[in-house]
């Protein structure tokens, strides 16, 4: 394994009621996180290839873990997102190297299809820093009912030489969507937008 993982952390949120209304079936979100060693700490590293390889490995691994945590088939995934928190001995660009060049392709295999852009967030932070992983519909970015986010944090990570990498997957949109716009059922999912 390319990534040096200290721990994996899996979150699942299942919403049964919202503002006094029953949510049936419940909406569910999962986030799979890996706390990894940052191979590029302490000095400026021009070539971030090692981090890109880690991103490729974690895109599939974390995507599969999130889908498994929801107990669904890959095709049942509806929205997704990704994020990274870099410890203080690293650089914000390290998060970009993990998230953007190669993480998406294996993640899309884990959720089957995934025509839409994977929304993302990144930051530097100390242990216990929370990050809101943005969520968007996996096949049609304009599906309004699925714009959302999932807050995650790992109390003991990232340490200064670590990076927290997060992938979030849902089987649903917001609990009570009612602001119009494109819906899951209307989406064609061909161009990644509508």
């Amino acid at each position, binding site marked *: 394994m390319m990534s040096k*993982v200290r*721990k*994996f952390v*899996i979150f699942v949120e299942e919403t049964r*009621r919202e503002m006094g209304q029953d949510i049936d079936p419940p909406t569910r979100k999962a986030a799979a996180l890996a706390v990894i060693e940052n191979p590029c700490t302490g000095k400026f590293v021009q070539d971030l290839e090692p981090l890109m390889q880690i991103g490729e490995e974690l895109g599939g691994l974390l995507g599969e873990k999130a889908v498994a945590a929801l107990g669904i088939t890959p095709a049942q995934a509806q929205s997704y997102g990704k994020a990274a928190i870099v410890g203080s001995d690293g650089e914000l660009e390290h998060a970009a190297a993990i998230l953007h060049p190669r993480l998406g392709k294996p993640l899309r295999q884990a959720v089957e299809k995934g025509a839409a852009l994977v929304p993302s967030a990144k930051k530097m932070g100390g242990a216990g820093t929370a990050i809101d992983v943005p969520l968007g519909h996996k096949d049609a970015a304009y599906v309004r009912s699925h714009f959302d986010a999932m807050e995650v944090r*790992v109390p003991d990570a990232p340490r200064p030489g670590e990076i927290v990498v997060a992938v979030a997957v849902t089987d649903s949109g917001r609990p009570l969507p009612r602001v119009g716009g494109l819906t899951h059922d209307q989406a064609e999912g061909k161009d990644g937008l509508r």
Partner: protein
Amino acid sequence: MQVVVRKFWSVLEEIRHEGGPPPATPRCVGALAAVIANPFAGRYVAEISPFMETLKPLGLDMAARLIAMFGGGNGVPRAAIDGFGKGAIVGTAGELEHGALWHVPGGYAMRELLGNAKAIVPSTKKVAEAGGRIDIPITHINAAYVRSHFDALEVHVPDAPAADEMVLILVMAAGPRVHARVGGLQASEITGEDGLR
């Protein structure tokens, strides 16, 4: 009076190492939290204890879900789960005593489903705003003095508890602290009859 669940929130950590030699089997620690309506919020209610009975099915359901989470996520069998803890966060329109309602239904459910575990289930409780964090203590399920298993898991649900809610939490763990090495009673040495050693 019934239990109204707004949401479940779970976390499962698989700990490979913490700077030292990775053990053959990673340590797993998990929590399941139920966000429920606090039926006693906003006023002083003298007689609250019958709600403990009402909460028993939720306790059993949550303990079973947590065991399933270990098995499903990481292939950890029930027999490998050897640590537990519990806790509650009461929203600000409630009272600390409401959190104490979780002791019996939460504790007994875990002990029952973990093979009639002998040790007391350690716990914490507090009143807090939504997103409040709580450290749930963890000890060995059959012998409270097992030093390698003293630990805690920090839990928080970003949007709970609302003022009129409670967050009820169960925690289980499989294995000792990942690099436990400060002596004391070992899990392999216990007799596990009095719940202490």
